[in-house]
């Protein structure tokens, strides 16, 4: 996609520039005083030997600032540079906004640059390849409904070995939660579904997996294709309304939360900016389970190895769930060690913002910029890293190999399953197994 020569359509660029040219963008672009406080907030800057070209202020001034200054009259070389900055040097983690005295939302501006690049057909191939899948199958990995349902059955069968009567309800109207997942769980980590089913069964939750709008990830959002991103998120809202569920539950995924709860309403043109159905993240729900005793942790099974918690940007900093995550970890582990910085000030793992799906061509950069995270983890001397985000999970696994960290990367579900008490009546009784099959 990016190899071919592109034809620049200035009117399209202008249209996007104009649509976004509101009071915020104007203020941000004009009052940035280039104080450089954002630079040290950015892990790209820190990981690349403090090269000033990675300072967030430079990134947005160079891209969006120049685009506005030139009123969209730019050449291909410049757009390619924008493309490189918007995807290769920024994960939209929003950490810089916490360090800007004016609170300039730099990630929002880089997102606009992404949609401008997209309008000119200039996006990383890995993201481009997911878009037709969204169009055709409604999910990024071209998983068919048949495959989804089959995998759910398979996993329910496997889960019944651990816990009696586990089922994975499909398309159940009136359930409390509509559990939306990452297609990666179906494709690569089906055990994730089995684990979720076990937790929900023990907690006696009323839940269901929908057959449309079940993919809560939204790579179209990261690809800058706002129209498609809106469709993706709207399909989810519509399904939730159709099933009359109380809330949409988001699996342990970071950017799914960002898409469903925060950016989605705008992408899908809900003028009030609020999702039509409440959005709940797994971290919040699991925290409530443990707090309310719906899931009990067996003290003898608590993890003794040193554990650290990776705050996914879109769960902690951008969704305010940092304490909930920690409470769960404290409940299931004896030796919890926090990274520094942590909570809402955590560094992005380096795989966010679409970086992981961008795949091989960006791997080298991803590993280089992930150095900061690797060093943070090493400093805690933890042996287990928990992250409630698929993206972080993949990136941490890669970092683990690259930097030889010797850690085990797990999701919250995994450790909850390991440590929770299975009530007597849910323990599978082997006698009946032969009869029931």
């Amino acid at each position, binding site marked *: 996609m990016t190899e071919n020569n592109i034809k620049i359509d200035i009117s399209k660029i202008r249209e996007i520039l104009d*649509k*976004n*040219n*509101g*009071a*915020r963008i*104007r*203020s*941000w672009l*004009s*009052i*940035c*005083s*280039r*104080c*450089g*406080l954002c*630079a*040290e*907030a950015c892990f790209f*800057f820190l990981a690349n030997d*403090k090269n*000033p*070209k990675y*300072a967030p*202020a*430079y990134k947005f*001034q160079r891209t969006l600032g120049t685009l506005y200054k030139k009123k969209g009259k730019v050449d291909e070389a410049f757009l390619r540079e924008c493309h490189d900055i918007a995807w290769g040097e920024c994960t939209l983690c929003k950490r810089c*906004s*916490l*360090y*800007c*005295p*004016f*609170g*300039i*939302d730099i990630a929002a501006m880089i997102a606009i640059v992404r949609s401008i690049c997209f309008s000119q057909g200039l996006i990383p191939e890995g993201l481009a390849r997911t878009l037709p899948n969204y169009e055709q199958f409604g999910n990024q990995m071209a998983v068919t409904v048949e495959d989804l349902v089959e995998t759910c059955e398979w996993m329910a069968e496997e889960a019944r070995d651990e816990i009696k009567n586990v089922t994975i309800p499909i398309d159940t109207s009136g359930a409390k939660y509509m559990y939306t997942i990452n297609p990666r769980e179906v494709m690569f980590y089906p055990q994730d579904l089995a684990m979720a089913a076990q937790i929900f069964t023990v907690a006696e939750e009323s839940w269901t997996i929908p057959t449309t709008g079940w993919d809560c990830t939204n790579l179209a959002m990261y690809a800058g294709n706002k129209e498609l991103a809106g469709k993706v998120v709207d399909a989810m809202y519509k399904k939730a309304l159709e099933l009359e569920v109380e809330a949409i539950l988001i699996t342990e995924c970071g950017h799914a939360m960002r898409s469903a*709860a*925060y950016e989605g309403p*705008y992408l899908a043109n809900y*003028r*009030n*900016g*609020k999702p039509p159905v409440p959005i709940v993240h797994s971290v919040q729900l699991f925290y409530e389970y443990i707090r309310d005793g719906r899931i009990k942790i067996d003290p003898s099974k608590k993890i003794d190895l040193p554990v650290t918690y990776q705050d996914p940007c879109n769960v*902690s*900093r*951008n*969704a*305010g769930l940092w304490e909930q995550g920690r409470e769960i970890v404290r409940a299931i582990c004896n030796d919890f060690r926090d990274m520094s*910085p942590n909570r*809402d*000030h955590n560094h992005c793992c380096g795989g966010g913002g679409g970086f992981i799906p961008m795949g091989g061509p960006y791997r080298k950069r991803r590993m280089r910029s992930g150095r900061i995270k690797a060093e943070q983890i090493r400093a805690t001397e933890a042996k287990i890293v928990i992250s409630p985000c698929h993206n972080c999970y993949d990136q941490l696994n890669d970092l683990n190999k690259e930097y030889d960290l010797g850690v085990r990367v797990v999701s919250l579900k995994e450790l909850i399953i390991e440590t929770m008490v299975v009530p007597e009546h849910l323990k599978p009784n082997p006698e009946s197994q032969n009869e029931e099959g």
Partner: protein
Amino acid sequence: MNWDYAYDVLLSRGTWIAFSVFILGLLVRCVFLFGISLERDRPFYNHMDWTWGIKSIIRWLIPLGTKGWRQQPLFSLAVFLFHAIFLVLPFLLSAHNVLLQNAWGFSLPSISDSTADLLTIVFIISAALLMWRRIARPEVRFLSTWWDYTLLILSSLPFITGLLAYHQIGPYKVIIVLHLLSAELLLILLPFSKLAHMILYLFTRSFIGFEMGARRGARCW
């Protein structure tokens, strides 16, 4: 060149022009931004919650009140002193109040001249620190444009010249004209440059307060 004449013109007509451009400019800019914000900045209004907005503003006004400030404490302190003195000192100078008394027959409470001297020197030192930081830190030097340096010099010029004039150092008449000229230029430029952050700060900060706090339940400091 007739310095006395220049002084008179700058003081009488100059201040009028400068202040009207300053106030009208800011007003027009704010009204304009408000106008376009209604359609294009829905997120600002949709998630409005002033407790978060005010928290966001106040936090960043306290020196070392945020993680960002604590990351660079010296800079934080310099910024705080620079802004505080810049905003307050001109109103508390006895010399300015005398002019006010003469023109409009009222004056604001003044501080003693020695305190004013001290504050001015503190201001100049913090301005120097900001300038030094701009040059010394590679990332800030890289980001800075000539306009950043110019505005920093321009905003400290009234204070430097004021100090020199008060102590009668150098050619008094030239310096006092320079004092007036730089101050008025600053006022005229203010609404149209990044210095407009004087007002816009409140809006951008409260926006990020709404955005992070009211919308996402997270902090922004």
